[in-house]
């Protein structure tokens, strides 16, 4: 083995390989065909079509004309649209922060020595597995104005005197859907962060303990920095999903009362499908794109940082 220099071996292998991989470009194209066909027709093309639709006055069942930025300028004067932007922002910011805090806390708890650990872990993930609409129906019932179990318990305990109108009052409705969103999102954050926690070597904690670090210090100076790349990615996904959420709102409030819980996605559905103004709906959907691009860039840099931390990188 020492006779042949390493570069020679590699060159021989490479020339053999390149001969065998002759035509791998053609082969690659053939293998890509099924995925590419579906993604180009049903993802890339609609993405472009959606951008174009947003600049037309297309109605359901009719061809539209190009009207440039008119949809956007009329949206700029549309108070319901701005309310939906406000709701979307509030919903995303509040729900994401609480999901993160609660998810991280739960991950740290699950990382402890626990009996029935794997069963508990499996249970924690349930809200994420069960179809969102179906669990949202359960929340809808929990928030019922007359038969809410939450109101009943609070009345029995003497905290309140009359039943809470969860979905009839604008702010109550906003908090109610935010709680449902947190319920649905915490498992994803918790389990993913738990996976991240388990990659941190225990010896780091032992060394820190020997140096006299307190629990809080170990968390601040070991756990958080080691976890930050995965936190960046998880939170990007979480923010992305919350920002573009449709199912929870549509099921629990349909945007009501008086548009108080309309998100951009539900308003876009209402204008485009229920109202028949495809062009206007598409314009609202397109208005979400700048936010998404920011979130994606954030995720991209999160990934880069992770590669850098692992000593990878290309």
């Amino acid at each position, binding site marked *: 083995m020492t006779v042949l220099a390493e570069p020679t071996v590699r060159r021989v292998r490479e020339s053999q390989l390149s001969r065998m991989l002759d035509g*791998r470009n053609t082969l690659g194209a053939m293998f890509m065909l099924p995925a590419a066909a579906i993604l180009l027709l049903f993802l890339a093309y609609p993405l472009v079509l959606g951008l174009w*639709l947003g600049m037309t006055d297309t109605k359901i069942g009719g061809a539209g004309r190009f009207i440039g930025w008119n949809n956007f300028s009329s949206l700029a004067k549309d108070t319901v649209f701005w309310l939906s932007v406000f709701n979307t922002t509030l919903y995303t910011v509040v729900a994401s922060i609480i999901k993160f805090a609660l998810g991280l806390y739960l991950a740290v708890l699950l990382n402890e020595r626990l009996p029935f*650990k794997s069963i508990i872990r499996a249970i924690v*993930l349930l809200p994420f597995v069960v179809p969102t609409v*179906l669990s949202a129906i359960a929340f809808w019932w929990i928030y019922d104005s007359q038969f809410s179990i939450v109101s009943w318990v609070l009345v029995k305990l003497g905290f309140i005197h009359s039943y809470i109108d969860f979905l009839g009052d604008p702010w109550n409705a906003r908090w109610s859907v935010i709680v449902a969103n947190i319920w649905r999102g915490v498992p994803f954050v918790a389990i993913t962060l738990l996976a991240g926690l388990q990659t941190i070597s225990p010896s780091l904690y032992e060394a820190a303990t020997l140096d006299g670090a307190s629990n809080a210090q170990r968390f601040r100076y070991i756990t958080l920095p080691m976890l930050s790349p995965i936190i960046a990615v*998880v939170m990007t996904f979480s923010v992305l999903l919350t920002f573009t959420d449709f199912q929870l709102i549509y099921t629990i409030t349909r945007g009501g009362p008086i548009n108080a819980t309309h998100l951009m996605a539900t308003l876009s559905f209402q204008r485009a499908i229920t109202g028949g103004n495809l062009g206007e709906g598409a314009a609202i959907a397109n208005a*979400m794109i700048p936010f998404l691009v920011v979130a994606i860039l954030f995720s991209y840099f999160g990934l880069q940082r992770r590669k850098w931390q692992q000593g990878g990188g290309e």
Partner: protein
Amino acid sequence: MTAIDNDIEGMAYLDRFPRRLLRLYLPLGLILFFLLFPFYWMATTTFKPDAEMYDYEKYNPFWVAHPTLDHIKKLFFDTDYPQWMYNTVVVSVSATFISIFASVCAAYAIERLRYRGSRYVGMAIFLAYLVPPSILFIPLAAIVFKLGLYDGNLALILTYPTFLIPFCTWLLMGYFRTIPYELEECALIDGASRLQILTKITLPLSVPGLISAGIFAFTLSWNEFIYALTFISSSENKTIPVGAITELVNGDVYHWGALMAAALTGSIPVVILYSFFVEHYVSAMTGAVKE
């Protein structure tokens, strides 16, 4: 998943029980209660007769005094529910198979054939994964209509892969990367074709990855809502989530018992599947984020 049961807190045994109770079990118990309560409430409502459901004075709402199967019976015999269940199964299974097939080919090509530009395609796949259905459903509705697929299972079977393929491809790329390249080189030297290598070496070695991708794709399809709501109009073509939300509500009359029964029975298939493959599910979920 890496070793789950590593004891991170090496000296945790020094903790006295009362302290652990307060610091660990109590908060954990509260969070678990919060996470599980909606399911409990779903289940009790399903089996409660109407008289108990609307009377909190005479009956304790947390218990079912006289369990009944009436709501489930109503759901199965007086509504299109069995048809929705059938549609959901057909759509989820077909979309999953199409996606796995397309993703295996694509991931193999990107990761192993390394054709020119494959790195950029890999990047594009990741970006496609981040495109949310809520900005695609309007133009997709126009396309579905133009292709004559409106109000049929095929509309869903063909559009669900748009969010399944990016996910599965990304997952399988990571999986294929863990299989030693040398195995394929040896087979190539022995004269195996690319297709033989894929079916005889790569795929058998990546069965866990395939299961992960399959389970995840299936639950994502089962869960899908906005496309099914937009592309389907007649009751008998709906999927469970859409049917439950649009057909079980007559004007202002909510059939809570039937709604809860639909929510419960519509969740059970995915939960059963999930409980069998929990490890795969978790590794798919975390893997896709960590890649």
